[in-house]
C-alpha cells in the first residue's frame, strides 16, 4: 500500500471551499434553528391547546425519524411542493446546497425547541408574575425577562448542540451537496485516495470538535462560578 498525503495539499483550495460551506451551513442552521426553536418552545408552552399540540407533534415527528430521511423528504419533494404553491409549469430547481440549509433549519428547530423549553421552564414562576405585576404584556415579559435568562442558562447546552450540528452537517453527503466531507469524498473517488482523504477529514473534525467541546466545558465552569 502506498500512501500519498500530497493529494491533500494539492486539493486544499477545493477542500477549503467545502469547509466554508460546512461552516456556513452550521451557522445558518444554528441561528435559524434557535430562532424557530424558541418560537416552537413558546408555542409548546402556550395555554392554547391547539397551538401546543401542533408544536409538540412537529417536534416529536422530527425527533423520531433519521436526519437522512428528513434530508430525502425535502430533497425529493420540495421542488414538487414549491411547484404546487407557485403553480409553475415545471418544478423549480433549488439545488442540494439550498435544500440542505432549509432542511437543517427545520430539523434543528425541533432539537433547539426542547433545549429552550427546558430553559424557559427552569425560570421561577415568580419572574413571570412580577413581570405581569409591572404591567408588561406577554410579549414584553418573554422578550425582556424570561427569554434572556433562559437563553443564558442554556448557553452550554446550546453550544454542545451546535457542535453536534457541525458534525451532522456531513450528512448532506447523501444529497450530493459539496460540504467538507462531500468535497473530500469527491476527490477520494476521483483520485482513488480514499485512505488519505478520509483519514484527513477525520483528523480535522476530531481536532476541531475536541477543541470546541473543551472550550464549552471551560465556559460552563466559568458560568457556574459566576451564578
Amino acid at each position: 500500500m502506498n500512501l500519498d498525503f500530497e493529494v491533500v495539499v494539492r486539493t486544499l483550495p477545493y477542500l477549503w471551499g467545502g469547509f466554508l460551506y460546512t461552516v456556513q451551513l452550521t451557522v445558518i442552521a444554528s441561528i435559524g434553528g434557535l430562532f424557530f426553536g424558541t418560537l416552537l418552545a413558546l408555542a409548546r408552552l402556550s395555554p392554547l391547546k391547539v397551538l401546543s399540540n401542533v408544536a409538540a407533534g412537529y417536534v416529536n415527528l422530527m425527533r423520531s425519524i433519521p436526519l437522512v430521511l428528513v434530508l430525502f423528504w425535502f430533497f425529493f419533494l420540495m421542488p414538487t411542493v414549491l411547484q404546487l404553491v407557485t403553480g409553475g409549469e415545471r418544478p423549480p430547481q433549488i439545488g442540494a446546497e439550498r435544500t440542505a440549509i432549509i432542511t437543517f433549519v427545520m430539523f434543528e428547530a425541533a432539537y433547539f425547541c426542547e433545549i429552550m423549553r427546558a430553559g424557559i421552564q427552569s425560570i421561577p414562576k415568580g419572574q413571570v408574575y412580577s413581570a405581569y405585576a409591572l404591567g408588561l404584556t406577554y410579549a414584553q415579559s418573554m422578550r425582556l425577562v424570561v427569554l434572556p435568562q433562559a437563553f443564558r442558562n442554556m448557553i452550554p447546552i446550546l453550544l454542545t448542540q451546535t457542535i453536534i450540528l457541525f458534525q451532522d452537517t456531513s450528512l448532506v453527503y447523501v444529497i450530493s451537496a459539496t460540504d467538507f466531507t462531500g468535497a473530500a469524498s469527491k476527490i477520494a473517488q476521483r483520485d482513488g485516495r480514499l485512505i488519505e482523504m478520509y483519514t484527513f477529514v477525520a483528523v480535522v473534525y476530531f481536532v476541531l470538535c475536541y477543541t470546541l467541546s473543551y472550550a464549552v466545558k471551560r465556559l460552563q465552569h466559568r458560568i457556574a462560578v459566576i451564578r
Partner: protein
Amino acid sequence: MSKLLDWSVFFQDLPGGGEEYWQLIVSGVYWTLGVSACAWLIALAVGSIVGTIRTTTEPWMVRLGNGWVELFRNIPLLVQMFLWYFVIPEFVPPLKAWIVGTDPVNGQFAAAVLCLGLFTSARVAEQVRAGIQSLSRGQRNAGMALGLTQPQVYRFVLLPMAFRIVIPPLTSETMNLIKNSSIALTIGLAELTFRSREMGEYTFHFFEAFSAATLIYIAIGMTANRVMAFVEKRVAVPGYIAGGGK
C-alpha cells in the same frame, strides 16, 4: 405521468418481477432491525466496560476510558462509517482479504455494526459513568468496609444499582441508534431509508415511499420505548422516585 398520490403503488411488481414494492420496504426493515440489534449488543457490552473503568481509582484506566469516549464523540458518524468500511480494512490484510472475497453485503453489515456499536458504546459509557457517580459515596465505602475487593464492590453493590438508574437515558440512546442505522446506506447497506429512496426512484412515488418509512421508524421507535419502559418497571429499585412508589 403518474397520479399525484397513489397508495396502491406498494402492490405493484418491481421491474425485475416476482416481488412487490411492499416486500422491498420490508426487506429494508429487516436490515435496519438486524444492524440495530447487533450494534446495540456491542454498544451495551463495550459501553458498560468503558463507563465502569472511568469511575475506578486507576488513573490510566480513567484516561483510557475518557480517550475512548472523546475519540468516538468528536468524529462525525458518517466519517466513522467511511473509516470502518474503506480505511481500516486496508491496514488489516486478513480483513481486506475477507471483504474482497465475500458477498459485499457481509462487509457492509460488519462495518455498519462495528461502526454503530462502537459509536454508541461511547455514549452508553457516558451514561453508565454518570449512573455510577450518581450513587452516594457511602455505597462504595460500605462495600469496602464489608471487606469486598474493588471488582466485588462493582459486581455486587455499584453496578446493580447503576444499571437500573441509567435505563431511561439508555432508552433514548437505543432510539438514536435505530435512527443512526440509516447512515449505513452511505456504504450501500440496503436498510429502510435506502429501500424507500430506491422505491421512490423506481416509481416516482417519493411521497408514498417516504411516508411508509417515516411511519415504520415511528412504530419501531415506539416499540423500543415500550419495551424499555417495561424493563424499567420490572427492575425498578423500591424506594427510589423512579421505583413506582411502592
